[in-house]
């Protein structure tokens, strides 16, 4: 179960074939270490995109501490490789994305504007929901991002409904639904698995297994901790993926997307990942040791992995990387400044957008 370091050597040996065979048979749910080939541009883009999410989240944490962000705020730090790797396999603006309340990274990976996301976090008029949704409830029709859902598991049938619409209209778009190991125990997830397979909906269920449902570890909450197997009784193929390696995520996403686009129905990807911060800002994370977190940061950090490869392969110098970091920080600072200075919504907004 543990997320182990991926090495390219090990990965090649166990390439799964479920997507290419199109048999609908359950793939071997051993962790899949196969990685996608990343050229220099891919690596640099992945590095940039993941770093943007991390810096954005650090800044959000800071603004929360200053009282500029209210309510609940769930940070994505540590899990960046999942949305960035999967995003690379999707058609931006066509394929739909839906997720839970830990959604900032997903929105940035969809290409949404950091200023609009941050301004929504601070509840200002320039936010994606004009300040009326907040951290957990944001949407972008343009980018086909359908939330941002505050009720654990509720996004799962909704994402399948988007896939239903894709199939109804005869497009080859796919719908990606992200949910956590906690949501994976919700009843509506299995109701959805059943219908998605029954109707062969082009939906990819991405289970972000970050090992803790709020404060309850997977082993304390789940009778079957191998989440890739959760679709077995519905004949939905599933695989466990090293979710800390953006290349492994991309490779798995390619298989899943190909499968769903071709009309074979749903696919499950269990991403073995880790969140460095607490469940939300007010969670001291006493349910795990500091060593556990530190070890993950030191050995498995998704951004550090890419950084190392870039330097080792001579694709980027330390100065190049510093330049990227500087640019990312500038974007995040601009977003934070905008989100701090922007006006709150006009009081008349209280009564708008209730009905069309």
């Amino acid at each position: 179960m543990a997320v182990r370091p991926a090495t390219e050597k090990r990965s090649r040996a166990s390439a799964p074939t479920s997507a290419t065979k199109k048999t609908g048979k359950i793939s071997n749910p051993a962790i899949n270490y196969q990685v996608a080939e990343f050229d220099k541009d891919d690596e640099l883009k992945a590095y940039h995109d993941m770093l943007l999410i991390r810096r954005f989240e650090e800044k959000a944490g800071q603004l929360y501490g200053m009282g500029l962000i209210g309510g609940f705020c769930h940070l994505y730090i540590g899990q960046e490789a999942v949305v960035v790797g999967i995003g690379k396999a999707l058609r931006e603006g066509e394929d739909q994305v839906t997720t839970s309340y830990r959604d900032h990274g997903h929105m940035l990976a969809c290409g949404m504007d950091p200023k609009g996301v941050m301004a929504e976090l601070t509840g200002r008029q320039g936010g994606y929901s004009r300040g009326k949704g907040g951290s957990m409830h944001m949407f972008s029709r343009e980018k086909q991002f359908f939330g941002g859902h505050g009720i654990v598991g509720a996004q799962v049938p909704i994402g399948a409904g988007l896939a239903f619409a894709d199939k109804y209209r005869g497009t080859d778009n796919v719908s990606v639904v992200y949910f956590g190991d906690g949501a994976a125990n919700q009843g509506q997830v299995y109701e959805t698995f059943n219908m998605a397979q029954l109707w062969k909906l082009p939906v990819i269920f991405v289970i972000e297994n970050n090992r803790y449902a709020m404060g309850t570890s997977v082993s304390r909450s789940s009778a079957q901790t191998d989440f890739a197997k959760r679709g077995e009784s519905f004949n939905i193929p599933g695989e466990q993926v090293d979710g800390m390696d953006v290349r492994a995520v991309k490779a798995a996403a390619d298989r899943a997307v190909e499968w769903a686009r071709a009309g074979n129905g749903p696919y499950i990807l269990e991403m073995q990942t880790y969140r460095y911060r607490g469940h939300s800002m007010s969670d001291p994370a006493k349910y795990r040791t500091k060593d556990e977190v530190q070890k993950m940061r030191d050995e498995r950090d998704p951004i550090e992995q890419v950084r190392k490869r870039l330097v080792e392969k001579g694709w980027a110098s330390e100065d190049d990387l510093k330049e990227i970091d500087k640019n990312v920080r500038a974007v995040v600072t601009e977003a934070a400044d905008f989100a701090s200075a922007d006006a709150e919504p006009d009081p008349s907004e209280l009564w708008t957008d209730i009905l069309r």
Partner: protein
Amino acid sequence: MAIDILMPALSPTMEEGTLTKWLKKVGDDVKSGDVLAEIETDKATMEIEAVDEGKLLEILVADGTEGVKVNAVIARVGAEGETSAPKPAAQAAPAEKPLPVAQASSTVPAAPAVKAEADPDLPAGTQFESKTVREALREAMAEEMRRDGDVFLMGEEVAEYQGAYKISQGLLDEFGAKRVIDTPITEHGFAGIGVGAAFAGLKPIVEFMTFNFAMQAIDQIINSAAKTLYMSGGQMGCPIVFRGPNGAAARVGAQHSQDYAAWYGMIPGLKVVMPYSAADAKGLLKAAIRDPNPVIFLENEVLYGHHFDVPKLDDYVLPIGKARIHKAGKDITIVSFGMGMSYAIKAAEELAGLGIDAEVIDLRTIRPMDIETVVNSVKKTGRCVTVEEGWPQGSVGSEIAYQIQANAFDYLDAPVGRITGKDVPMPYAANLEKLALPTVGDVIEAVRAVTYR
């Protein structure tokens, strides 16, 4: 320029905390993600992580200091030799500085007034034909499905079985399995799939075999369908109809006999329709399917087989949100909707024999409620009795009574009477079930009480 490290708030309610200990000392290099210090609140101990990189230049609040206010500067980080820039007010105490608001006003803006449209005038010479509510509902769906390829029907037994109550009979033959879809018995799941399809712009009609089963799906109906337009700042929209029989049928016991009018009637973001007659069922279901909002369409199993005159028109659409004056009168206003209308109408007939001329209003829509029609009537009659099958506390009648006292207090000659189902789970035994439901006699009694006759 050096960066101020502020005492963070760790929860929505935190105002101050204890700086337990520093894990870095002045002169240490820090990079983002490094733990700088531990702080303690009444709830938990938490770590402060560095966001920016540099050297820890100054520590301003010592280990063990209690009562450190949120947003107080506790340290400075920057390049060596740097000094802190003068603190901008916003950074030092953003919580105290008023936020930039578009309008510096704490008064709540008034809700916009909603004016209901009147029923369209029927063309001269319109013929009527007798139809059951069942036929009217079926025609409404078929006509709208012919008109718009994005409309589809999903639910348990709607296709091959031809509908548990035969509302969808024949639709599978005409529209095929792509648009008339049998679902597994999985209300929460298929309601959510319907919502997702509606977010994508399709126009699902989701049939619940009864609204009692929609309790399994109520999270998707309220949290997803009703609230998302608002939460998305107007981007999303959910053009969906949830329909099916609601309220008591006959002898099916407590879990299958419940009226949800008041439940859904409370929710902003929903429209709630509860027709009585076949004509209204047809005209309002067509309107509901065309409506860009989520509409709860509450039918009644007992009424499915009742016959009513329905206008023989190609496209009979009624406005949602408009009450209908079923019978004009001058002595008292009886307000009801759905199955309650059958008691109200019979009571009015009998009251005429007692010399009491009742005005009977069929609300038809629970939300938005056409309170104007009710208030205008009460201003004329000075008295009102409401009739419904649902429970008394928080009932639709309770809301009507509130609205009347707020808008027509000076016109009232008696307290508003309220007839509801009894405040008990529905019993199975035939005699007890009868006692639990409103009766024509209950309505007559209430009217006599408020007319003092």
